[in-house]
């Protein structure tokens, strides 16, 4: 709670609502911290600076990340490195079809020596949670995790347990293998702020990977560079980034354009526009500005919005990817000047 007060104090005089001036520009200290995290991650995952930046944007925006990738591209390493960098607790859940919700949230155990029921925390009580292969578990377990993500707290037997802050979930799924999976319904995918695809490294970077892991994994050499409290402070900071009304209207228009599209069964929800709003702020802040430009919105649109779209059957099998629909919306809506 002390931490909360500190943060509130620091941000007390910040007026972040649209139209009025936000005084705080990112100070060197904060951006240096961010840069440190970024460098840390880059030393472990080579050649994926864009994806790393997206990950950090999601972290700052207080959202969660869906990593869709082929196996072996470094998803686990990335999540672990992030946890180490922010000196947070790292937990990993490997989803299997027989996993139960209690295995995620934790449950009460009877301690016979003391004669009471003890609550044993589940792996969800972590700062960085890697939910591996989230599409391999039953929908019941999926919804347990997703509920935790949205509420930031766990209620077990009437008792509320708060999750550690910051709580950041990195969920992974393999986009090509569907045998034996329970694909996340698009409505649940909506809860992820950003969808990132790492992809295979290119030739030079793959060579680097081979050589860098010759003696030992670079992850073992990682040191924490920021603390969890600083991350929380960063998260509050970005809320001070000024969002001009015109740019906010741009976001709203973009999202509304997808709602009118005949090829979509369901367009993008306000959760999507909110996620775009926050991530645009985070990006602007990362680039050293205290105001959001339409350019931020445009560069983030696909990563933030594409996975929220529910395609009509005809469009889905007609080979229209969701990405294309977002790109078309970007082309269709004039940009505020």
């Amino acid at each position, binding site marked *: 709670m002390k931490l909360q007060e500190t943060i509130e104090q620091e941000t007390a005089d910040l007026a972040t609502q649209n139209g009025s001036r936000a005084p705080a520009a990112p100070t060197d200290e904060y951006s240096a911290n961010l840069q440190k995290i970024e460098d840390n991650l880059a030393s472990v995952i080579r050649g994926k600076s864009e994806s790393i930046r997206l990950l950090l944007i999601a972290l700052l925006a207080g959202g969660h990340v869906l990593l869709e990738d082929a196996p072996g591209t470094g998803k686990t390493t990335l999540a672990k490195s992030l946890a180490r960098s922010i000196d947070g607790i790292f937990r990993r859940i490997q989803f299997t079809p027989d996993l139960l919700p209690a295995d995620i949230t934790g449950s009460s155990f009877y301690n016979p020596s003391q004669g009471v029921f003890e609550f044993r925390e589940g792996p969800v009580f972590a700062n960085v949670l890697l939910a591996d292969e989230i599409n391999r578990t039953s929908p019941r377990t999926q919804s347990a995790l997703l509920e935790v993500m949205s509420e930031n707290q766990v209620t077990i037997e009437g008792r509320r347990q708060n999750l550690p802050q910051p709580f950041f979930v990195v969920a992974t799924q393999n986009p090509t293998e569907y045998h034996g999976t329970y694909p996340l319904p698009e409505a649940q995918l909506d809860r992820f702020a950003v969808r990132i695809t790492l992809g295979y490294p290119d030739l030079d970077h793959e060579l680097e990977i081979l050589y860098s892991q010759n003696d030992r994994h670079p992850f073992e050499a990682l040191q924490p560079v920021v603390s969890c409290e600083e991350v929380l402070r960063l998260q509050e900071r970005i809320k001070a980034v000024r969002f001009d009304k015109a740019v906010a209207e741009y976001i709203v228009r973009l999202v509304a354009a997808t709602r009118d599209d005949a090829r979509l069964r369901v367009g993008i929800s306000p959760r999507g526009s909110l996620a775009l709003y926050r991530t645009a702020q985070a990006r602007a802040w990362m680039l050293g*500005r205290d105001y959001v430009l339409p350019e931020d919105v445009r560069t983030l649109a696909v990563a933030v919005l594409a996975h929220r779209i529910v395609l009509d059957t005809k469009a889905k099998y007609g080979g229209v990817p969701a990405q294309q629909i977002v790109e078309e919306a970007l082309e*269709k809506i004039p940009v505020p000047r």
Partner: protein
Amino acid sequence: MIAATLVAFYALYLTSGSWLLLLLAVGLLGTYFVPARLARASSAAWIIRLLAYGSIATLYGSKPGNAADWLFEARAFNVIGLLAAAELVLQAWREPPPGARYHAVIILLSGIVFLAGCNTFDDSFVRYLTPLYIALTILALRALQPRAALDKSAMNKGATHRVPTGYKIHLMRGWLALSLAVTGGAVMHYSVWTYRGELMSWGAQFFRERRLPQSVGMASQPSLGSTFEAQDSPTRVLRIEGALSDDHLRGMTFDTYINGRWEPSFENRNWRDVSLAELHSDMRGPRTRVTRLVGRGGLLFMPLNVAAVIPTEGSEMMRDTTQGRTLRTSDPPPYAYEIILSNQGSELGIPIHQGPLCAPPDAVQHARYLDVPAEIDSRVRALAQRIVRGLDDPTDRIEAVAEYLMAHHSYSRRTRHGPGEPVSTFLLKKKTAHCEYFASAAVILLRCVGVPARYVTGYYAHERAGKNITVVRQHDAHAWAECFVDGVGWITVDATPADGRPDEAAPPVPFWLRAWEWLQDQVSATRDRLANLTRGQLALLMLGVLALWALERWRLSRRQKAPLQTGFTYSAPPADLATLARRFEAWLQQRGLSCPDNCTWQEHLEEKLSVVDSTAAKVFLKEYYAVRFGRPEDQRAVTQLSAMLESLEKQEFVPREHMEKNQ
């Protein structure tokens, strides 16, 4: 494969002499040098196809009279070969299916081209070109097989390059193929060349109609039998556009009756060409157009008393020399001819104009027309005398005979043909019978009373199909008599009772058949119109199609560009900032860099980086954005911005090429 195809092209070139083949050969060779290909599902292929086929049709097509005959014209072979060659080149330019170097369609098409080129059975072909073509094709067929497996032993020995042992075997196969081709070609040459006559006639016969046609549904030789020869088929036979003076359309006449048959039969006639003058073709008057739709006998049907007959331009008509001037043509159906009718009537109420079809009989013919055969029962003569007792005028006699028949006999399509002479039995035993009997009886009776008469088969037109159009069907076949009256000429006499005439007796046509016929008419009308297009019109049509296709592609590409949404504006910045924005846009436009609405200025300038150096503009933009989206109320910043913009505007615009040159 290209070699084999070129041999085939050469063969076709020798036969047809068409320069188009040289063009196609160049196109084919182009596939070897140019790697670009059309996508497999490309729509451009259809346009190219249309162009190619259209040009071949325009240049070489001739209007086929009859499809079956046309197939045996040399021209047809050439056109087929050219079409196959064009399709071949088009397929060569398409992406082949994965894994094959040439797909089987090309090989098939080259075969067709070669065969088309072979239609002259020229010696040089068969001896030299055929073996060459076959050998090259067999060698090319290798290309369809997957490559031979590597020689494993060579690899294990660590050979640095692959030993193409596969080639040795294939070379053997090649020689084998060549020798087979040569021997096979020699054998084929001998047998086909020797029996080419028989082969051609067999093929021709196969294509022609096998059934020797009755002359349009009427027997080539009417014989009085149990049932009326004409089928109940509703097939359309004639279409008449215009008026008719008489609904009886005569086809053939017969003058000799022997044992229940009318002679002479269709095959035993002498036909000779008839000139336009004989047909009075230069007469003026309202024309009625008759189109014969089926039938290969070539008979033409028209009323007896037409004033003039005008055949289709360029076609010939023939006339029966011995009988009553029936006309036929050797042109295949559909054949159209025009007739001019005469209104001339008499107090008889029937047409009496003696046109090109009405020639007065000479002495021999006159005798034949009065001849009552010996087998007719004498009681028939008595009956005839009884019928016309007291009447001297031939027309009265004719009337009496006709009325007698109509009153005392009734019509039925089936009759029991007992023993004895049919007409006599019919008349004396008062049997019911069909129109052939009535007509025969009328002729015999009239001859008995001294009126020259002859038996006529033809059609009875009654079915109106639309304004001024009459349709005649197979089941409207009819028989009646014609009589010669001194002072009047030939007139039509129909003695069949009213319920026996086709307008009553013929079964009605179901509506679905009418609909189907209407559809067929539309199709053939379109085909005729298309076949009659001049070259210029055809070219224009193809250009039109091409233009439509281009238009559609353009529209599609426009649509995919996602039209900009308009109709709303964003919250406006403070007025001076808006002015600055407008000034900057004007600045961009002056330098030809006007930015589309759907991307930011910065992105646009990034794109145009290769064209113009815009560092100054980018600096301005950075500041502009900071003010516009960061602190729009800051007046000082706004003033600074306008100062910046002014200096920017003053800068001279130097495109990048010039800059590099200067440097």
